[in-house]
């Protein structure tokens, strides 16, 4: 009799706490969940709908009436044949293939120089981080000014060349390409530097000493201990830069507007232009969806691989 009463008293309190906690947890995460829903689910559904039509805001009808302009998968087949899209995509990949490794190697080199303590380390470190904190649009304008035919870059080159240099950087397709890449490398190398240095500093010093005592040279230690132990961080740094670089818009658009012609038109600039200039939003929706789905698949795959290897290793 007594035991029952005691038991009856204890249990509800315990359940009360868990239920309360769960309810609280749910309501705490609710705002975030709603916002994600708002920005992810509705837009995708909307885009799926619009992408199957030939709608444009110029048509004078509201978007939900776009079914009147139904054209099935025509947008998608057009997309497959759209040279401008594919060349923009290719260009974006090319930019990535140049910028990310360059930023990585420069960042790694800087990290190696900053691992030891030396006078002025903290100050120089802060200074080197500044480019990364400049508003990208403003950085784009900075480099626009730098690469003017009458600008500082030509001025410096003239100094080294001995005669006046008046290269029209931003009017030449290849030179403009180089200039935008330079602006990206300038702005984001500090990010690589920041992340890689944090990772490098975390390599246990005792292990490095042990390796030295066993006769290993600096390069051997770097190759066999520092780099392997930085593997995760290196992957994270590269992943972050690849993702952000793929999305690049601000500084490229301000520097060249995607030009001359389409010489510096990345995928984001392409989508922007078709959205604002040609206004064929049905088509743009199709493009957007294709990109979203490919990115979702690739990222889900990569994340699964990463968590699998994290569990194994």
């Amino acid at each position, binding site marked *: 009799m007594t035991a029952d009463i005691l038991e009856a008293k204890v249990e509800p309190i315990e359940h009360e706490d868990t239920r309360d906690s769960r309810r609280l947890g749910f309501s705490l995460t609710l705002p975030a969940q709603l916002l994600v829903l708002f920005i992810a689910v509705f837009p995708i559904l909307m885009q799926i709908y619009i992408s199957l039509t030939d709608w444009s805001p110029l048509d004078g009808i509201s978007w939900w009436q776009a079914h009147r302009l139904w054209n099935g998968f025509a947008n998608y087949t057009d997309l497959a044949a759209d040279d401008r899209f594919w060349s923009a995509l290719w260009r974006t990949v090319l930019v990535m293939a140049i910028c990310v490794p360059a930023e990585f190697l420069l960042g790694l080199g800087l990290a190696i120089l900053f691992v030891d303590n030396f006078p002025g380390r903290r100050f120089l470190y802060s200074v080197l981080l500044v480019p990364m904190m400049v508003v990208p649009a403003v950085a784009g304008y900075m480099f626009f000014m730098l690469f003017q035919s009458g600008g500082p870059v030509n001025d410096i080159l003239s100094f080294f060349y001995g005669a006046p240099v008046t290269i029209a950087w931003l009017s030449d397709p290849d030179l403009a390409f180089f200039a935008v890449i330079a602006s990206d490398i300038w702005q984001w190398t500090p990010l690589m530097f920041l992340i890689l240095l944090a990772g490098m500093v975390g390599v*246990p010093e*005792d*292990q490095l*000493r*042990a*390796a*030295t*005592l*066993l*006769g*290993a*040279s600096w390069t*051997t230690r770097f190759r*066999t*201990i520092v780099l*392997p*132990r930085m593997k995760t961080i290196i992957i994270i740094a590269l992943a972050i830069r690849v993702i952000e670089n793929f999305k690049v818009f601000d500084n490229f658009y301000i520097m060249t507007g995607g030009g001359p012609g389409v010489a510096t038109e990345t995928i984001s600039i392409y989508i922007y232009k078709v959205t604002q200039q040609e206004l064929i939003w049905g088509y743009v929706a199709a493009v957007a969806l294709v990109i979203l789905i490919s990115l979702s698949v690739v990222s889900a795959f990569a994340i699964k691989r990463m968590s699998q290897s994290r569990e194994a290793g």
Partner: protein
Amino acid sequence: MTAIHLENLGKTFSSFTALRNMNLEIADGEFVALLGPSGCGKSTTMNMIAGMIDPSEGAIRFGDRDMRGVPMSRRGVGFVFQNYAIFTHMTVYENLAYGLRATGVAKAERDRRVRDMAEFLHLTPLLKKPAAGLSVNILQRLAIGRSAIMEPAIFLLDEPLSNVDAAFRAVMRTELKHLQREFRQTMVYVTHDQLEAMTMADRIAVMDHGKLLQVGTPIDVYNNPSSVFVAGFLGSPGMNLVKGKGVESDGIKRVDLGEAGVSAPLPAHLSDSVPEGASVFYGFRPEHCELTDGEGLRLPVTFVERIGARTIVHMGSDGSAVKCVFDNRVPVRTGEVVSLAIDPSNVRLFNAETGAAIGGAN
């Protein structure tokens, strides 16, 4: 050949002097323990032998080779870190092979030596396993093997047993000693645990506050400590030190120990060195006490610790606080006043001001 000579070694960091006037000769094949509390300079000394830090003054010689300017990677020194510093991102095999690979030993020979070492250390079944997550016991053997495979003339160990739980420590002590005999290397072992030093070392170098206080065989240092610090540091519990004054009556020198009474007559070699009225510490080891019914020091029992085979009896208070160790059958009770007899040959005297031992060795 592989003797170590530390000559007037010293190290100062900015404002802090970690080590001063360190002179020590370590013979080839000898196992020397650097023993002392935290901050005594033992790790600093060892780091300088290894080449991790440069001396501020003095010299280090391996044999007749001056090691100044010789970088860490070329000293031919084996080093076992306190946390072993195992390369946890590699396998056991790769850890063992690391030094050989780094110094360009050919693959075939490397393989042979790794397997031999693994065999010797009973690590063969683990060769392909990642070094991360292995037990401390295995890691210790791996750490030693990784260094030993390079056949260094000198082996340095920095408190390797401090991360091991008490149960294993005894086992590991024996293993380490066995390994040292096998490899016949000169070994320098840093520790703050006097039991470790006593059981494993050929000689012990006791250090405190950056100075070398005494060097000798374990028995030597235990029986004839050169200062109150060494006397108190070795042994568990350490030597009892009761403050007293030299007194003379009828031509016989004794020590007046205040409340405890007056001691038994001092042995000859000590009585000559104690002037009348000199302030001394009267020292005797806890295991050298005997309870008598007759003459002796009179002390009240304050606390009795019965810990299995031994019983530690705490007596007296303040200046004459004393601990004695008896077997577990001793019939004492708290509050009782007992009479303590100590064989004069087991008595040691120390200058109360300087702490230095008085009189020659026994």
